[in-house]
């Protein structure tokens, strides 16, 4: 079947089977490899994408169900080739990852959280990433990364005289 998907601000037509998950469609039909398969039963969150701004599991959804809703994948987060968003940069600053497999999902979850809550407490960050498993880091440096990103996005790292 042919469906139209709104991915990273561009509507693309895809020919896919009705049973194809959004995850497989992104990876196999659209060559967007940043969403990863971890468990394919909705627990690990490595396949997370932003679905109308909300972090969802692309392995639990058919591609066809995604028609008509704007989707952002990790490939839509970088401002340009080789450039990092403030959140991506914060993950690099704290080394909020090791193997990098769960990382795109963690970055997207951070985007969703900070869009909603620019001033999260530690518990808010812990809650936000609790649906995404990371086996490498024990989460500490991921939590640090999101807290740092929030601080920077709020402008709290500016010199005092430049703060409003």
């Amino acid at each position, binding site marked *: 079947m042919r469906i139209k998907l709104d991915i990273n601000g561009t509507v693309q037509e895809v020919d896919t*089977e009705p*049973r*194809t998950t959004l995850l497989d469609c992104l*990876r196999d039909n659209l*060559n*967007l*490899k*940043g*969403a*990863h*398969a*971890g*468990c*394919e*039963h909705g*627990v*690990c969150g*490595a396949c997370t994408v932003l679905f109308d701004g909300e972090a969802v599991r692309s392995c639990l959804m058919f591609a066809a169900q995604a028609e008509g809703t704007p989707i952002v*994948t*990790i*490939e839509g*987060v*970088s401002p340009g080739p080789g450039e*990092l968003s403030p959140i*991506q*940069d914060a*993950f*690099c*600053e*704290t*080394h909020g*990852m*090791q*193997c*990098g*497999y*769960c*990382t*795109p999902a963690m*970055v997207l979850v951070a985007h969703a959280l900070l869009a909603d809550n620019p001033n999260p407490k*530690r518990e808010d960050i*812990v*809650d936000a*990433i*609790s*649906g*995404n*498993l*990371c*086996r*490498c*880091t*024990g*989460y*500490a*440096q*991921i*939590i640090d990364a999101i807290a740092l990103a929030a601080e920077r996005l709020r402008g709290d790292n500016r010199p005092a005289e430049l703060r409003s």
Partner: protein
Amino acid sequence: MSETANHFRFVATERRVREDRRFVAGKGHFVADIDLPDMRHVALITCPHAAARILRIDKSAALALPGVHYVLDGAELASATLPLMTGLDTPNVPRRPLAHEIARYSGEWVAAVVADSRALAEDAAEAVEIDYEPLPFVLDAEQALDAASPLVHEAHGSNVLLDKTFVWGEVEKDFAASAHTLSLRVKWGRSSTVPIETFGVVARWDPWREILDVWASIQMPRYADQIGAALKVPQTSVRVHYDVDVGGSYGVKRGIKHTVLVGYLSRRLGFPVRLIEDRLENMRGGDAHGPERLFDVDLAFDDKGIVRSMKMRALENLGAYAGRSPFQLGKPIGDIVGPYKINSVQYRALAVVTNKTTQDAVRGFGQAPTNVALERGMDEIATMLGIDPIEIRRRNFIRRDEFPYLIPSGTTYDSGDFHTVVDKALAATDYRELKAERDRLRAAGRLAGIGVAACLEPSGGNATFEALLNPSITTSTFMDSCRISIDGMGAVTATMHTTSSGQGHETLVGTVVGEVLQLDPDQIRVTRADSLNSLPSGTPVGSRMAIMLGGAAFHAAEKLKAKLVAIAAHDLGIPLERAIYERGSVHDRDAPQNKRGWADLVQIAYRSFHRMPPDMEPGLSVAHVYPVPTGGKLPTADGRVHMYPCVSFEFHLVLVSIDPDLGVPEIARYQIGHDCGTQINPKIVRGMTMGGVAHGIGAALYEEFAYNDDGQLIAQTFMDYLLPSSHEMPKVNVVDHETPSPFTVLGQKGSGESGYLGAPAAIANAVNDAVRSLGLSINTLPIRAAKLADMIEQAKSPRANNT
């Protein structure tokens, strides 16, 4: 001994990890990202019984489906390939990618379907009809020892693969001379590392070049050797690409059976073949389970709690087949006494096969279970004598002025300062306040307990335990390598020779080379060879890469620097000793204005050969193959061997609070004292510790590959095999100490394992402290909340048990 001043430029500074940029952008290069033209996909058919004879495989309906190319069974594969390499000499326990005639565990791969897509392959797998004759089976290790139990491999004649007893020192005499003895039984449940990326491999056979190209999420020493051997092709016909990012491994990504399977299929069918395990294939049939071990420990000690001798029997439930997994009983020999001055040890390493999933290497290679046994024992001594558990450890610790320290089993520990690390951890957490907090929780009706654990992390990966457990093996080093080139335009490239699974090795190499050559590490390109153009590398196992790859990079950079100095000295017409290297240029010590800059040196080496010292090779390219420091020896006749060059040390201090009705343990406080010598990259070291603790919390409280009585694995999804999430991970405070190793190039030691080695023991001790007042003692991991609740309930009202 402790150093605080950093005399390095780049080492031990808070530099970013260069790998991170590609990962935050979703631009890692994982095996599932590899799309080759004409690539076909594999799905596996698994045995539904704990043991069964395969009577008939009917492939016809599957092969009739569109897009289906092949159904491979074990008989064909066994006739065309050799069994996989094993660590022990057990020829009657052959291990193959697909079961041949008999399947020996539920979930074992019986046949493989190849189709145009994974989805079609899965459809076709359902259409393959297989008739089985179920056979008797055995699941429990102690039952497997019983001569009346079914044999997992009949031709082997027993279920025992390994039974070796070592006696180091006067054990019986020390026991007789000790005022007290104590016995305990500790059980470590079957769990593993369970990376979020399953194992995957893509293989492409090129019949015109006669090369099998392999891309895999691999962390396997001698991987290419084993592929070639099993497929009966020369080593020169296997090219493993090391530039694949591995999505977590922590030991377990060994995938040799997967690779032989798809390698064979690609040769047989003439197109590239890919197998990416799904989660079920991974957990059931991926042969990636970890140790399941039963310990019987006897300790002999005096009135002050000084431990004089130990007897330890470790019984390992290997599962149905064995590769290197029995060696996980061997590595703990390298630090069998932990950080303690135990005078003599008897150790019996016993491994049996059962009808469970096959094991492979797990973080620490068998030491996390051993450390639980030892550290539970130390706590039991403390309880018996009424001595504080920290004090009992202090009394037994090796003191910093006693290093290098020879332990009874033959390893000499390099350095350490255990007492100071403990002091720092206690100061950082305010131990008195921690005790007060525990008592407040108790007063509020919670069961609360403090647990401590010390652990050593032997690092540097010299696998001499192989020779100890299998004398036909004569491996006495396990090298790593680095090649560095300055090109004709003056840019520097360093090459490493293995895959990585999150350890930041590109950053490691860049930092070390930059340090030696006094160049900005970010300007140094780090690449990975493939197995046909690589130097020898042992892969990232045994907590070794900071030491081994770091050592190789250091020495290669020193060689390159020496060449630059020699070229400059010759061109300046001065003796070598007057030529001083500084930040890429070389000057005359006695006349600093006389110098040759980087561009001059590159020009001479690459183009102005007439200005080179006589007999020197043109160009600026060097390689260094680095043997394990302190390695090079085989075991002695009485079973002693020096294993790893370094020991890192970690001290864990945990406050656990348990809901008395629900039995759910919550970790209220977590403090670590950590010493891995020089930290080449502190961000990476911190991550390793935190990740190790999370992994250890999982093994202590949540994770178990549980089987039912029918031999079915019942924890086979992430809904029943529970990995700690951010909610289960407490805030962990780490205080660092730095005791450099005298045996490594920068004083560095390993840091990949100690979080995982210490956490399970500390948590088990904390839970025991919490329930001790009820007369309970818990020595089985994982400590399940439901079981704990039942035990608490029963202990509180003993008669309730009878209602």
